[in-house]
């Protein structure tokens, strides 16, 4: 069922928030030119840490936010100006659900179904997602995972051609997660374009046909799961050093393809050390800066290092700021190693 025209194309998407009073009324740019493309019959994943700009990107793609630059085309239309006919072909599951607390799932899904000419049968959909067990319990009394399934059903009840799922596995127990994943694959096989966001490597790995890694409001890597997981040299090391004074990257270091990630307390980490030439570049850089480290060690690269390296230093660093200093290497074609199949939270300490 796949078509040559993508369900969604986003090019050069920029979004500014503000003016922010705490920043003297300045604007904050949260998206710096995002691009993505979602095909029919495929799961397209936006992977990134919290605050990377995934939800803002989705909100622009869904027409909930007006972009400040770039173009968005959803089913061939500008979603921000789209009318009810376009909305009827798109299902949306919001990150916080957007469900009315006092309403019961059965009543809500019947109501949402009533907005469509030929909806899915809400009763069958509830049975499929296991919602029938709590169909008549007010939504405020449901668990996070139960609410999540109701929100998914609400996104699907109109039999959409494209669905946006913002963190669809958040709060799900393993069994519901399996149910939801099966359903997503089935929808993909039925020809739907599925765009989802996640911060879990495992979800991205298990579901995606194509992954965009987003950090600091920019695209930092993309590819099929196979492409992203097959080529990274696994012997890459992280060099940790401690020194008095300021240690910023210089052109000589960035030319070697290395970037500096401050850890605080005068410690910095340099990821992606895979050859002795890299090591020489680091010592030459220290010599140019006139810095003799007080400590220096090589560490095996952990999952978090890889992700944070791509994500630009640290998770806290990612919101509303440029990722890398000007002149930093383009990360677009960087590969993710196999170990990233593990969710970030379950990273084994110190091993890769």
């Amino acid at each position: 069922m796949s078509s040559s025209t993508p369900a969604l194309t986003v090019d050069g998407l920029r979004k500014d928030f503000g003016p922010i009073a705490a920043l003297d009324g300045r604007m904050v740019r949260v998206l710096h030119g995002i691009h993505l493309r979602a095909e029919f019959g495929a799961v397209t994943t936006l992977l990134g840490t919290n605050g990377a700009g995934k939800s803002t990107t989705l909100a622009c793609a869904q027409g909930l936010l007006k972009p400040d630059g770039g173009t968005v085309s959803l089913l061939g239309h500008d979603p921000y100006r789209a009318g009810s006919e376009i909305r009827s072909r798109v299902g949306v599951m919001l990150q916080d659900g957007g469900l009315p607390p006092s309403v019961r799932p059965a009543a809500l899904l019947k109501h949402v179904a009533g907005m469509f000419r030929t909806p899915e049968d809400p009763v069958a959909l509830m049975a499929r997602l296991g919602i029938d067990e709590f169909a008549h319990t007010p939504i405020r009394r449901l668990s996070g995972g139960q609410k999540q399934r109701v929100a998914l059903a609400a996104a699907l009840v109109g039999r959409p051609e494209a669905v946006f799922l913002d963190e669809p596995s958040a709060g799900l127990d393993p069994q519901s997660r399996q149910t939801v994943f099966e359903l997503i694959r089935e929808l993909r096989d039925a020809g739907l374009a599925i765009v989802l966001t996640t911060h879990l490597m495992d979800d991205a790995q298990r579901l995606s046909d194509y992954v965009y890694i987003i950090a600091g409001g920019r695209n930092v890597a993309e590819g099929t799961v196979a492409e992203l997981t097959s080529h990274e040299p696994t012997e890459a090391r992280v060099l940790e050093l401690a020194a008095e004074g300021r240690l910023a990257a210089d052109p000589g270091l960035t030319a070697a393809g290395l970037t500096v990630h401050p850890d605080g307390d005068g410690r910095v980490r340099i990821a992606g050390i895979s050859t002795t030439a890299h090591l020489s570049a680091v010592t030459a850089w220290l010599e140019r800066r006139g810095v003799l480290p007080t400590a220096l060690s090589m560490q095996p690269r952990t999952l978090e290092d890889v992700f944070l390296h791509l994500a630009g230093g640290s998770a806290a660093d990612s919101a509303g700021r440029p990722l890398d200093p000007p002149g930093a290497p383009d990360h677009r074609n960087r590969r993710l190693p196999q170990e990233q199949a593990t969710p970030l939270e379950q990273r084994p300490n110190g091993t890769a």
Partner: protein
Amino acid sequence: MSTPLAPSRHGGNAASLPVRILRHGRYETGLMLRNGEQLVLAVVLPLLALVGLTLVDVLDGVGPTRIDAAAPGVLALCVVSTAFTGQGIATGFDRRYGVLTFLSTTPLGKAGLIFGKAVAVLCVLALQVVLVSAVALVLGWRPDPAGILAALPLLLLGTAAFTSLGLLIAGTVRPEATLAITNLAWVLLAAAGGLLLPADRLPGALSALVGFLPSAALGDGLRAALMDGVLPLGPVVVLLLWAVAAGAAATRWFKWT
């Protein structure tokens, strides 16, 4: 895999706009009627006011009997209960929980959401008017038959003005603030805003000021209609101006998230 989940695949799948609005109106009417606090505000307190005003002498001299002077004001109070306070609070919390955002992604859309809410307010108001009128008739109310037709446009204009004001508040401040503001306003407008007591019964300066409020326009207008059988121009103009101004302000400043 019991359920086939295939896309509709025939272009748009939206129900027609009138169907969406009526269905959303029915849904929101159900929510309002099942909400205990809203029912107290919409039915219990107005009925208490109706009975209470026939037992005390504050309205003596306003109309031929106490109930004739009280019933129109209580109908005006019903408008403020449902269109302003009840609707404002519900919309404020819907906004907080992202319900407005979610519904605006469905074919209902923003316009359908607003018109659906308006339908629900009118449905609940119709039930209030029937109930309050029935109780008032039992208590001896004899409205001017000519005024019943004149009361309708006043009720509709009042509903438009107070729905817009409720949405303006719900769409600009936190839901807790909406709750406080609209409840406080309900009490103040009922007591001294020209709803239950005619504006000219209030002390000097206050009386002139209150006359320009939508509450006084609605209360005094309904009293003129149902006691004297006329459609007074002044209140109609005041209500129209408030409806247009509040509608424009809500359109301009209402935040969906």
